[in-house]
């Protein structure tokens, strides 16, 4: 049961740490391709608007960010917020590795150290139980911690 919970949590966090950074990267790239935003004259703004929403890069970026938020919400349905939020910081490592391997960017040594520290921190968090609270959909046959506490109080 616990291993199933862990597996679900890992898969959803895995989707988050890939989809989030990719979405941000693509949106940034798409906005740069569209050019500087000018609010006046109105025709200029419309042109930029058409260029932004006519860009495949922007749409893939938006789709990636939607995937990220959906995975985030689903992850929060199975695991603690204090487990998912810091674990999602692995996304900083993913974006650096992607930048290094795909875009051949130079990554400063300090940044590599930071990524190593994040990985170390996530390894600590990974050793804790992903969920320490009861969920609304928990099996009614198995009394939850809250139900047990309530039963104790009413017995006294």
């Amino acid at each position: 049961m616990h291993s199933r919970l862990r597996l679900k949590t890992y898969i959803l966090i895995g989707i988050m740490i890939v989809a989030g950074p990719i979405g941000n990267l693509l949106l940034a790239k798409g906005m740069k391709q569209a050019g500087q935003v000018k609010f006046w004259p109105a025709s200029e703004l419309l042109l930029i608007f058409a260029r932004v929403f006519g860009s495949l890069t922007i749409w893939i970026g938006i789709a990636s960010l939607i995937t990220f938020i959906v995975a985030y919400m689903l992850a929060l349905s199975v695991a603690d917020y204090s487990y998912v939020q810091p674990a999602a910081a692995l996304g900083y490592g993913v974006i650096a590795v992607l930048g290094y391997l795909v875009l051949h960017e130079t990554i400063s040594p300090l940044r590599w150290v930071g990524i190593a520290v994040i990985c170390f921190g996530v390894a600590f968090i990974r050793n804790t139980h992903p969920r320490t609270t009861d969920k609304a959909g928990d099996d009614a046959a198995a009394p939850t911690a809250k139900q047990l506490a309530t039963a104790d109080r009413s017995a006294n």
Partner: protein
Amino acid sequence: MLEFVLFVLIIVVGTGGELCLGRAMQETGELERFRPGAAASLLWRALRVKWIWIGVGMMTLAFFSLLLLLSFEEVSFVVPVTALSYFVGALGGIFFLGERVDRQRWIGIGLVCIGVTLVLVGK
């Protein structure tokens, strides 16, 4: 003073918004099976929980505060400070969501916080 208010909005209100999402998902239930139908049904039920909308409102406020702060402060100063949200998130997890954060998880959160700051400073 304005800077301080904006930092509070970004860190506390932004993390508070995410905590509200957590609360909404806690009330909605668990994703039982990895099927698109099950995920869509769970998310649809979550949309009817008030915490989702409170969370979205708070996250929107934090986002615009970040934009405003970035208009007059250096990114290299603003972004590392937002790493504090991991601590605020853990405190919110304990007091708002009733999570149990043990020592090991605290150490992990502290390391993530330091690591994120190093990554952002090292840019």
